[in-house]
């Protein structure tokens, strides 16, 4: 193992590549978030029928041939697009760098459901004759597929794998990438998350059966975190991968630095398959703050996970209250900086599942430079239980100065992740 001295442990973001239902690069995505542009639209999927979703419309042929598209998966394509865009954005000379020193760490909520559903649908037409089951099924459904397709497309011979972390996966990918840089396992990490989940009817049917699938006459108004008239989750696809580097390497090459990973944490609720646990969410935030060496009063912007389910929104708000608005709470309690703002990105794009954490962080990074906090849209009647100080509703708000962003991402089976990024 290559030993990395403590002076090289600082990890920074030097590139952002993404596809979101409302933008295929950071600039257009940010513009959509500031202008209140939703990416949610009407969507049809077999068996479930007409529903709503956030669908991406990036140019698949920008980085892949049709042959690769035919053989691979949508998650692979989302990953390839995001990774290539991130590397280009980072200004890395791809023909010169040692690609054996690049690591690929891709968070996924799930993988393989889309491909398995497709094959079952296909063999149904042959009276379930398994001899027409595709030989592509296994390479498409192995859990490392989205990360592996990136390495095939980009000629990366460093490590690659996915991190199955439900809807905390985007943050989990970032955390893993940072840790591998700190261990010296790679020199550049392509890290974040992807999702192809809108291609599986099962996720829509599952949320519907759970009573947690959003429905609304106006697609753009369907995703309504913190609003009393919310009706559930809008499923979205998307991808967001960051180029992470050690600060010393980035500085040496004169890279533009979006921000530094100040702290992070992951933990588990150990309490329920689907219901969140605000005590553990709060503990996760406190751990991340401790590791960042920051007090609750030093966070300027909180990017919430809230998905527009009543229990999820309210529980996260309870956790936030405990960390930021609770002077007599545990570990000395927490009192937010009075200027601290809170927003939510799912209100624009729906829930991008494995990509959510990374996309939601990315959309907020420009606030370090432009001093604006994008809002949570679709809040017409704020749920009193979600009425937190600093919630930015419906219109963007200028901020005196954004120096730190705390990004929450939580998932089923009680998986919690928090990433804190600070301005460099």
């Amino acid at each position, binding site marked *: 193992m290559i030993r990395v001295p403590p002076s090289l442990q600082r990890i920074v973001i030097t590139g952002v590549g993404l596809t979101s239902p409302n933008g295929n690069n950071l600039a257009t995505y940010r513009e959509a978030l500031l202008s209140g542009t939703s990416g949610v639209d009407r969507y049809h999927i077999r068996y479930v029928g007409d529903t709503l979703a956030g669908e991406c419309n990036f140019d698949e042929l920008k980085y892949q*041939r049709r*042959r690769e598209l*035919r053989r691979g998966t949508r998650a692979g394509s989302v990953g390839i697009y995001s990774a290539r865009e991130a590397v280009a954005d980072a200004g890395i000379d791809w023909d010169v760098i040692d690609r054996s020193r690049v690591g690929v760490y891709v968070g996924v909520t799930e993988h393989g459901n889309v491909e398995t559903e497709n094959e079952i649908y296909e063999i149904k037409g042959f009276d379930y004759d398994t*001899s*027409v089951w595709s*030989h*592509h099924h296994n390479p498409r459904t192995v859990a490392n597929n989205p990360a592996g397709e990136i390495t095939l497309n980009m000629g990366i011979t460093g490590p690659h794998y996915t991190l199955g972390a439900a809807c905390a996966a985007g943050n989990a990918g970032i955390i893993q990438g940072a840790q591998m840089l700190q261990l010296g396992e790679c020199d550049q990490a392509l890290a974040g998350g992807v999702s192809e989940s809108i291609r599986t009817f099962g996720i829509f049917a599952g949320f519907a059966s759970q009573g947690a699938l959003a429905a609304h006459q106006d697609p753009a108004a369907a995703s309504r975190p913190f609003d009393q008239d919310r009706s559930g989750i809008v499923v979205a696809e998307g991808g967001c991968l960051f180029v992470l580097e050690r600060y010393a390497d980035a500085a040496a090459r004169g890279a533009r630095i979006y921000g530094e990973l100040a702290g992070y944490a992951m933990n588990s609720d150990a309490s329920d398959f689907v219901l969140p646990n605000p005590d553990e969410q709060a503990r996760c935030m406190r751990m991340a703050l401790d590791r960042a060496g920051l007090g609750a009063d030093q966070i300027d912007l909180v990017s919430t996970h809230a998905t527009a389910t009543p229990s999820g929104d309210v529980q996260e708000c309870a956790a936030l209250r405990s960390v930021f608005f609770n002077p007599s709470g545990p570990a000395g309690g927490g009192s937010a900086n009075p200027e601290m703002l809170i927003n939510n990105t799912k209100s624009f794009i729906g829930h991008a599942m494995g990509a959510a954490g990374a996309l939601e962080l990315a959309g907020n990074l420009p606030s370090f430079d432009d001093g604006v906090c994008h809002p949570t849209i679709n809040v017409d009647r704020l749920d009193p239980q979600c009425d937190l100080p600093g919630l930015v509703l419906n219109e963007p708000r200028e901020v005196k100065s954004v120096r730190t962003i705390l990004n929450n991402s939580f998932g089923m089976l009680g998986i919690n992740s928090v990433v804190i990024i600070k301005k460099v």
Partner: protein
Amino acid sequence: MTSAEIKKEILDILEAIAPDENLTDLKDEVNFRDQIELDSMDFLDIVMELRKRHRIQIPEEDYEQLASMKSTVIYLEPMMKDVVA
């Protein structure tokens, strides 16, 4: 199917399997792999498509018969003579 119809069917399958390739100049006598980018998984796709479209089962030991257009058509003719184009 006549041999010409079988050839047309194979070309149709190849268009789907190798969508980036220009198949207009494909030479019947030359191995597919020497003319276009095809790997073992692609060859399995040819086998799979024939199975799906015409219920033709090609045993593994006969896969080498699918090397070129000419050998493929010769191999498939007796199996597909009763298939209606």
